[in-house]
């Protein structure tokens, strides 16, 4: 159990470095992909829903603490994202989910919810059309993250995931 958390936490810090230094250079329509979320979804599918929820909470906590964003906002959104991604953790289907484009769809779903919750808790006034907010703050970063998650499918080892 300890090593189950150790590896994702070990991967978290270099990914956060990339997320805050290199990834902003690739912003599209003011949206940037979320590498932390891809890592979270991957390990949530691999290890289950409770694990995903806790890992999301820990990732969110560290993210808020380190990047200076409102403490609690990423905690909340990543906890929910981990919970949703963990829903797809099934011993029989794990391989199918992680090795096919289904993984990107799960990332898309989790990323949209993550972005929506994050912006809901950190934006003061919501005067715009809800559908527009859903598109700009949820779908665009979610789609971008989902597209980037294809890299995981390509580079995932053929054997011995679990």
């Amino acid at each position: 159990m300890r090593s189950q958390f150790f590896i994702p936490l070990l991967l978290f810090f270099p990914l956060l470095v990339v997320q805050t230094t290199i990834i902003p250079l690739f912003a599209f329509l003011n949206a940037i992909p979320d590498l932390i979320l891809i890592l979270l979804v991957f390990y949530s599918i691999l290890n289950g829903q409770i694990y995903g929820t806790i890992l999301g909470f820990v990732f969110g906590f560290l993210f808020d603490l380190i990047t200076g964003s409102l403490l609690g906002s990423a905690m909340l959104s990543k906890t929910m994202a981990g919970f949703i991604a963990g829903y797809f953790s099934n011993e029989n289907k794990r391989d199918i989910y992680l090795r096919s484009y289904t993984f990107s769809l799960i990332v898309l779903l989790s990323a949209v919810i993550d972005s929506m919750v994050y912006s809901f808790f950190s934006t003061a006034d919501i005067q715009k059309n809800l559908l527009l907010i859903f598109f700009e703050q949820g779908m665009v970063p979610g789609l971008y993250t989902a597209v980037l998650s294809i890299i995981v499918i390509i580079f995932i080892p053929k054997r011995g995931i679990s």
Partner: protein
Amino acid sequence: MFRFFTRIWTQFKEYVVLVILLVASLIALSLNQKQEIKKVRSVAFGSFATITAIISDVINTAKVHSENERLRKANAELMLQVNRLREYGVLNEQLKGMLAMKDTFNFSLIPAAIVSKSLNKSQSSITINIGSRDSVKAGMPVINDQGLIGIIQSTSEDYAIARTLKNIDFKLTVKDERSRVDGIMKWTGEDLVIVDVPKTYDIEPGDRIITSELSSIIPIPIPVGVVIGLNKVETGIFNEVTIKPYVDFIKVENVFVMGVIQSKQRNDLELNFYRQK
């Protein structure tokens, strides 16, 4: 009772964990202004920024050539502008002397590089590679050659986090450079706007927006952006003025921290005045 809880846990443990962690997150949201939390955060981002600084240096070195080209051109343009401003400065000194006015333009510029960016729709912030050791304090404005970027939010010994203009917690008094009309500018999560501007005020698309001397945060004029539109024109008595910031927050790499902070004396005086009312 124990059996009841055991059964609940067995059947709904995923949901129980989720609810507990969501409640913990909500509690964390309410603890943001605590001094202890601020201290922990400054230690955390300070340590992390040491690592991101190395990566940023590598990226900056790769970009330094094109940056040099741009800076050379900017230098030439600025040299011409400085010459003109010098003339104005001499004239200004003379006129101020005649009017016996105080000069409020004494401040230092501390150069810094951005080591990491946290860009999102509502709470964009940047981490820079100077901190309290370099006399950086919370509340100091962060600028570059294009205009205002944000203000310092917190500092560690060697690093500081600044809220950018695209942060909903950042509100600033600004003014229209042409018509001298003041207003409160804020980030809505979508646009940078001056809110509740009476329709009778003279603000037009294309006007330059600068910081206002009425601001207790940045009391010296720094370019902020340009007016690109007026909203809610049909209804009500107020307009909402949309501004396009001069600074491109995605591309910005090098910044200056201005050595000015809010005047405590002025703040205290104003607070006392309002309390007496």
